[in-house]
């Protein structure tokens, strides 16, 4: 099994007519960490929703782990790809933390013992082991973001797709989240505006601007190209 993402000539038009992605091609290799950067409205979130088949290309093709994203493969692909939404209040739709982390494993039809073990392990991995019985509404934003990551870790995903994981966090919560991500050995594609996060964690950077891929290269090359960053509304860390 290769935990890869292949996006070929992906174009996506929203029902209202807005072209959110135009001819986007991108590939992420096994265990590679790629950052997806670009201004608000560039199409980052739209692209991420294609990676587990929530949205389907208007034209072009998405392949995950060697399987094309089609209705036949969708169950398998959703088990492989752990997609963490930007706003944890969208991701945590159960009142209680335990039920949210158990949601994925339960839908994989795992036995109860295994579901409970996975919930414990996932909450442990994000440092939230004491919060299984807490009400999500009462958690801080940093805690919610950690639980949101646990809700996909419990599904043992091969690929992590994270939408702006550090947005809105205070410096300490941000640092501990970065350490958490750094400890995970997985294929990872992360949308972010946090250029220090990019420098710390990612080996490759893809710039998405105005629905198109504007640049794709090693982190060192991209972050040292001041003119390129300025052109796309980004700042060097």
């Amino acid at each position, binding site marked *: 099994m290769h935990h890869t993402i292949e996006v070929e000539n992906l174009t996506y038009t929203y029902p209202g007519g807005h072209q959110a992605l135009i001819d986007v091609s991108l590939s992420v290799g096994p265990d590679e960490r790629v950052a997806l950067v670009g201004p608000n409205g560039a199409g980052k979130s739209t692209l991420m929703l294609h990676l587990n088949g929530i949205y389907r290309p208007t034209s072009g093709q998405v392949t995950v782990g060697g399987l094309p994203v089609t209705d036949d493969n969708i169950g398998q692909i959703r088990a492989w790809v752990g997609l963490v939404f930007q706003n944890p209040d969208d991701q*945590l739709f159960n009142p209680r933390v335990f039920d949210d982390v158990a949601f994925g494993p339960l*839908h994989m039809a795992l036995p109860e013992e295994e579901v409970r073990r996975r919930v414990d392990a996932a909450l442990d991995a994000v440092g939230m082991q004491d919060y299984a019985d807490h009400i999500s509404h009462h958690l801080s934003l940093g805690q919610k973001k950690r639980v949101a990551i646990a809700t996909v870790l419990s599904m043992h995903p091969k690929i992590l797709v994270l939408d702006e994981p550090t947005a809105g966090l205070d410096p300490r919560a941000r640092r501990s989240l970065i350490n958490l991500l750094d400890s995970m050995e997985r294929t990872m594609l992360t949308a972010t505006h946090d250029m220090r996060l990019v420098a710390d964690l990612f080996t490759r950077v893809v710039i998405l601007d105005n629905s198109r891929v504007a640049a794709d290269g090693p982190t060192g090359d991209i972050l040292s190209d001041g003119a390129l960053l300025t052109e796309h509304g980004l700042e060097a860390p």
Partner: protein
Amino acid sequence: MIQLQHLNPTEADTALHRLDPRVKLIVALSLILITGLMPSGAFGAYIALFALMMAEAIIARVSPVLVVARSLAVLPFSLAAVTLIFTGPEPYLAALPVTGWPISEPGLVQCVSIVFKSLISVQAAILLIATTHFTTLLWAMSSLRIPGVLVAIISFMYRYLFLLADEAARLSRARDSRSAVPAGSPVTARSLIFRARTTGRMIGSLLVRAFERSERVYNAMLSRGYTGAPMQIDPPQLCPRDVLIGLIPVLIAASLLAISLII
């Protein structure tokens, strides 16, 4: 602001707090059903049911005054019953001074009965909420085989009520902080219609946000393998002692119903 803390159970740890939530849910629903079935004008039975509620409140160490006070919130909804007073049959007690509408005695009895019955029903629900956490109640519903979609809807209601209340509070704070008044003018410079229009737009914006959120939440569910089929961990066996405790108030209420139907 909505008083959302009313949705949380009280801190005490009494026999009623510890009772199996499935039993409590069924008991509360049975009490409400029995109260609804009580014949009109059975005031003795109403008082007995009310005493039963207050006894439960005392056992659960919830202030009876608080239970009664919160139950009064239902009064506006029973207002519809007031029409019975003027549309009921003879004998008439009197006529209303200005309009001359006749006050029907059976209508008056019916109206007061409905108000009492709704108060008692709401008190049963308040006691349930005051002794059971909402998440436990959701668990009880699904383990009683209430369809998963219904439980999910109630669960979303609870989860997002807080968020929507926060969002509404943020919107009205944003409005208030931009609603400046010129120096020396009265409290509000704008007309009622202007303010009503602003509020209307705020409600619209809240609905649009709720709608967009529902789409994002559904996407999050799909991402984690949701197919529409309900999934849950199997509930444990009911403990016979809990069933017994639950039977007591239900049987008391049922015998009150039987007695008032005979008399």
